[in-house]
């Protein structure tokens, strides 16, 4: 068993290191174009669609952040869509509209987020169409920063940098660190043409994109992921704006976080199955490499975490047994003469573990630097490092079980429009 762990650790570390170096080399190659510097001379007209289902607590804040965007009012169209909410979402939208008459409010029977987006897209008049989630707040300069990327005529979509809003709890902290790292990696991957999601929190598209590729689909409850894969399948360019931050609410507890991740990961696997030609190396180069790499990475990380859990459990049970043997009388062991540093051994496994840790911390700190993140670093980051690998492996196991069993997933609480 130890040998298997060693083999997996070496393979996993090698793979992680390879990816890390690929990231750093790509970062170095693109160091002069990390941010779009082309000035925004002609401001295009922009329509931003805000689909909502049971978002009475969030919709107002989200609308406020949209009207506060640093953008001329006559060029900004905000379309709020109520997807048949059961709460006061629609009333809140209408009340807000009274104060801000430029905002359009649409209402429809509940049908899911993709149907809400598809209702609004044909009615949107902007040259650029944006989508935003109802629990998100946009930084005032985000829109302008993102629009700069459309300077390149090949860019069909631009994604923002998602951050967790006011991380207070442990769960927030875990998601905060995760989003910082994923934000960093997303940008680097965009240089390789490998983005596989145009996230719900804030993405912009050229209006003609939807004419070419068609409307949103249900897509295993991950319409934002499917849309990106669809763009990729047609070799459309997706850019990432590090400098445009959108703040989302972290999931408050493990259950809701797990539900969300299960939906994302399940959507990734099933959509990838639907878009399996993207794995064709000749047709999609870097993208197919990154997709195959991430699939292998999932397998490796799950196997490694499972074996580590087995070892940890064995160790804990062993210590419990020892505690039982001496009737929990540990006092004699607490003496200075027992203290020695001999246990710190520079084994290959320890070195590899250190390398992996350095890599992940490197991603975190670079992510903070490049996304201008100023929030203070606290102990939650250590919980992220400790817990996240286990949580992630746990989610992948559940995801695989869900995909293999073919069980259909439902939106949270059987509410088809609710974002979980």
């Amino acid at each position, binding site marked *: 068993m130890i040998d298997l762990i060693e083999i997996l650790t070496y393979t996993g570390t090698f793979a992680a290191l390879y990816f890390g170096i690929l990231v750093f080399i790509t970062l170095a190659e693109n160091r002069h174009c990390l941010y779009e510097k082309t000035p925004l001379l002609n401001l295009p007209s922009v329509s931003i669609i805000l689909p909502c289902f049971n978002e009475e607590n969030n919709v107002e804040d989200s609308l406020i952040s949209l009207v506060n965007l640093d953008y001329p009012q006559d060029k900004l169209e905000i379309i709020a869509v109520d997807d048949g909410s059961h709460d006061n979402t629609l009333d809140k939208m209408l009340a807000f509209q009274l104060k801000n008459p430029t905002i359009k409010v649409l209402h429809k029977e509940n049908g899911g987020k993709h149907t809400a987006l598809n209702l609004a897209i044909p009615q949107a008049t902007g040259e650029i169409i944006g989508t935003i989630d109802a629990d998100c707040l946009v930084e005032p300069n985000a829109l302008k920063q993102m629009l700069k990327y459309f300077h390149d005529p090949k860019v069909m979509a631009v994604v923002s940098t998602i951050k967790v809003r006011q991380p207070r709890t442990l769960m927030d902290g875990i998601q905060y660190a995760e989003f910082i790292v994923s934000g960093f990696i997303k940008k680097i991957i965009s240089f390789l043409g490998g983005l596989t999601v145009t996230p719900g929190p804030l993405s912009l598209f050229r209006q003609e994109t939807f004419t070419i590729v068609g409307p949103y689909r249900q897509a295993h409850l991950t319409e934002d992921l499917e849309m990106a894969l669809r763009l990729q399948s047609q070799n459309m360019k997706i850019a990432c704006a590090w400098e445009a931050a959108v703040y989302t609410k972290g999931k408050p507890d493990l259950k809701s976080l797990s539900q969300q991740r299960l939906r994302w990961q399940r959507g990734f696997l099933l959509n990838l199955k639907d878009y399996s030609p993207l794995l064709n190396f000749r047709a999609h*180069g870097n993208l197919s490499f990154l997709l195959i790499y991430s699939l292998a990475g999932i397998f490796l990380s799950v196997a490694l975490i499972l074996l580590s859990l087995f070892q940890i459990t064995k160790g804990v049970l062993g210590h419990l047994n020892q505690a039982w043997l001496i009737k929990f009388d540990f006092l004699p062991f607490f003496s200075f003469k027992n203290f020695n540093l001999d246990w710190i051994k520079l084994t290959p496994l320890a070195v590899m573990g250190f390398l992996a840790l350095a890599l992940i911390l490197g991603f975190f700190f670079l992510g903070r630097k490049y996304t201008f993140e100023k929030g203070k670093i606290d102990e939650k980051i250590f919980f992220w490092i400790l817990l996240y690998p286990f949580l992630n492996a746990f989610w992948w196991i559940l995801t695989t079980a869900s995909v293999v069993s073919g069980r259909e997933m439902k939106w949270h609480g059987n509410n088809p429009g609710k974002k979980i």
Partner: protein
Amino acid sequence: MAITPEKKFNTQKYISVLFFTLLIFGSGFFLSDYTTKKRIAQLNDLQQNLRTDILSLETQFSILNQAPCANLNESTLTNELYSISQKLTSVGTTLGEDDGNFLELKKYYSILEIKHWLLLQRAAKECKLPLAFIIYFYEDSKNCPQCEDQGYILTYFREKYPFLRIYSFDYNLDLAAIKTLKSVFRLQDETPIMVINSDVYCGYKSKDELETIMEKYVKLESLEDKTATSTAATSTSSKKK
């Protein structure tokens, strides 16, 4: 649409990445290999230490004959025994329990233990040292599933009772001195085995059982003096089995 320039696979770049990965990965291996080799290189020092300690114990025996008790430096030797056992455990983990070099060191260590035990037994009698002794025989976990638990309990005893000296021996170690011990105490093949004052106790003994047994020979409270040091005889035993 044709493949975008970003997506184009740059073989040269990926090979460079592989080169750097191999370089860093290799350096990591080299670093750990270097420290392991350094650790193994310490084996010679350890062997030398063991030889010196054996000689030292023999000398102390001679001194004890000439000037009983006056120059007995028990605590230094006991500490040395403790330190060597820790290093030996570490060597066993690094090299593997079946490694020839490790087994050779283990033999040296066992001889040192026997000599230490003989000296202290005599010193305890002649110099009225308040010491108690347990000789412990163990086997590997295949032959003796309970030896690990017994070893841990004995480690606990050693820590709790500083005047208790515990000497652990691999029952199957190919060493004449151990074979002699086995025949002297007429041991049966039923590990774990503990010898306390020439009485042989076979089979696993729980903490409470062992305390009851020990009370027959010595007031356990008298072994609790915190100013004394203890051997680390079982620090290897709990891991060696």
